[in-house]
């Protein structure tokens, strides 16, 4: 069931996930599959000065005609969300493909984790790339296999496993019903003239305090620390050790963690003498929410 056709015009794909989940590699596998299938292609990742767990995305742009493209496109035809906990951060466009156990409205839901099993995030890039390849006309199973072998750095055992997983995902997605396409929101804009602003405004000076808390680094977490207040003995070692300063103490001197800014480093769990802090995968939390 291929629904996107690069021989009929430009197809733009975006992968959303987190640093460490192979998002750049997913783009590269899809890009390579298209390249060996004879299409013109561009692929590139986007990330800032961030780290493992931070949101990362990568683009693949393809067509059988000349590509006159540079940088992130204004709209996409296929949005692949590899980490479901990012759903609320993403403005989905085109066909929406989500790595999820549950069926979702207006989206293809593919439980990539169930295909991957114990290999975990090692194989996520191969699964996500082959799921998207199955939706694009002109890419065969063999091109995906070849691309995985070329793009993934792993030992022979892992490579073989990843190829098996990719093939199962590819065949599975091919049989799924066609999802709806979410239209791009029309962007109304106009050019404006820049006026003179005095140096008090036009200097990049930050006068307000605590502005870094507005950067919701909570989205970087792969796991979240959950406190068992019963087991907590109010030693507040976690409060002292937290490198981000996101732990406050309640009236009983027990920790309250701000999930808006906690990056999930789990130093608090390490220092807790009473094992009162446990790591919970963010994907499980998001499914409950």
């Amino acid at each position: 069931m291929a629904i996107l056709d690069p021989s009929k015009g430009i197809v733009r794909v975006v992968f959303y996930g987190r640093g460490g989940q192979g998002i750049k590699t997913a783009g590269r596998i899809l890009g390579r599959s298209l390249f060996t299938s004879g299409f013109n292609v561009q692929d590139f990742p986007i990330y800032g000065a961030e780290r493992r767990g931070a949101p990362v995305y990568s683009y693949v742009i393809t067509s059988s005609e000349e590509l006159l493209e540079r940088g992130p496109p204004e709209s996409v035809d296929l949005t692949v969300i590899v980490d479901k906990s990012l759903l609320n951060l993403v403005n989905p466009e085109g066909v929406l493909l989500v790595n999820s156990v549950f069926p979702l409205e207006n989206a293809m839901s593919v439980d990539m984790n169930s295909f991957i099993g114990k290999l975990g995030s090692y194989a996520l890039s191969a699964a996500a790339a082959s799921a998207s390849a199955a939706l694009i006309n002109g890419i065969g199973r063999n091109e995906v296999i070849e691309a995985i072998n070329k793009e993934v750095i792993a030992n022979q055992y892992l490579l073989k496993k990843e190829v098996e997983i990719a093939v199962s995902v590819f065949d599975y997605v091919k049989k799924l019903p066609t999802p709806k396409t979410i239209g791009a929101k029309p962007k109304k804009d106009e050019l404006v003239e820049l006026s003179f602003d005095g140096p008090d405004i036009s200097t990049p000076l930050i006068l307000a305090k605590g502005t870094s808390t507005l950067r919701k680094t909570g989205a970087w977490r792969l796991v979240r620390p959950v406190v068992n207040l019963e087991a907590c003995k109010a030693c507040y070692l976690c409060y002292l050790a937290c490198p981000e300063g996101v732990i406050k103490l309640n009236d009983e001197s027990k920790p309250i963690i701000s999930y808006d800014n906690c990056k999930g480093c789990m130093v608090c769990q390490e220092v807790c003498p009473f094992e009162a802090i446990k790591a919970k995968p963010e994907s499980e939390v998001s499914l409950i929410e």
Partner: protein
Amino acid sequence: MNDLITGNEAAAWGARLAKVDYVPIYPITPQTEIVEKISKWAADGLINARVTRMESEHSMLTAAGAAALAGARVFTATSSQGLLYAFEMLYNISGWRAPLVMVNVSRGLASPLTLLPDHNDVLAARDSGFLQFHAETCQEALDSVLLAYRIAEDSRVMLPAIVNLDGFYLSFTRERVDVPEQKDVDDFLGPYKVKPLSKENLPSMGITTLDPAVYSYFRYQVHEAQKQAIKAIDDATKRFEKFFGRKLKAIEAYMAEDADYLLIMTDSFSTIGKRAVKRMREENVKVGLLRLWALRPFPIDDLVQAVKGKRGIAVFDQDLSPGLGGIIYQEIAGALYGTDDAPKLASFIGGLGGKIPTDLDFEYMVKVLKENIPPNEPHLLMSKSDMELVKKQREIALRGGV
């Protein structure tokens, strides 16, 4: 060999195929991948180059210049702040007439800091005496490195060269790149001609002169050599086409011949400019595009020819000289002033800090040309939604979270 590789890897391939002998390095985003690649090739024995990590860009470029005079074909690469840190040596190396090739991966200059590209970094080097070639695609990153060696080492020229490619939009973007055969590159380039130092060949460089006339003579000779480089570019690009089938010119003309209006651009955003031209052509707007590949030497004669009879020219500067305006606009205005029937010029500033030009920007540029609005000062390409973002961030900076 056709492959899907990044602009950085393509540039590294240029150095590999040129069989460079010496590569002094220092890392900086978004360039680092180039020297990583070369280091790995050297460690794996795939290239026969000595790779040395220096303690700064200033030392890196000093070592590069000295080695080029000592008989080694030299490659190095930097970006943005790194180029500025090495700046003093740019003028020295052109004065030494050391024909090395350095890649600059463009990135806007602080402050405020960014990682995305504009050209204030590389254009700061425009008066140094280095030749300057600007790549539009990943393929051109590779091709330009090969051409730069051929032109820099031309016996009429003997000057160092910078090859510029945009950070992110080329450096980290993979595209189809045709990697030439080693044998063909060997024949295209020929061996490095500077004699290695030996007991019989031990010249020293006359680096000090207090006589203004002597100083004037040597510095002006750098300009004379740049003028010779115009001919060297012509010869080298023709030779390149014969060897590899790809055509590069000091100025590329895109749908320009029958155009009434022209856009002038450089580097990777030219691709978006071409898309806009193609789209406006479908609406019967007679517009074309000139892309400057060579910035030094500045191809004045080609430019005068290419704009003849046009009704208006819009110069898109991805740079800014505060207090004056667009740098390339000024160069083009200077080149055309006083020529017969010079077309009207308008200046636009866009793409600073990597801001991607939009359809709206290009439509506005052509509208200004059509309406013949006198271009007293540059037009900044900024939209309402851009300003809303600025306003939002400014409010947070002044008053904290809303």
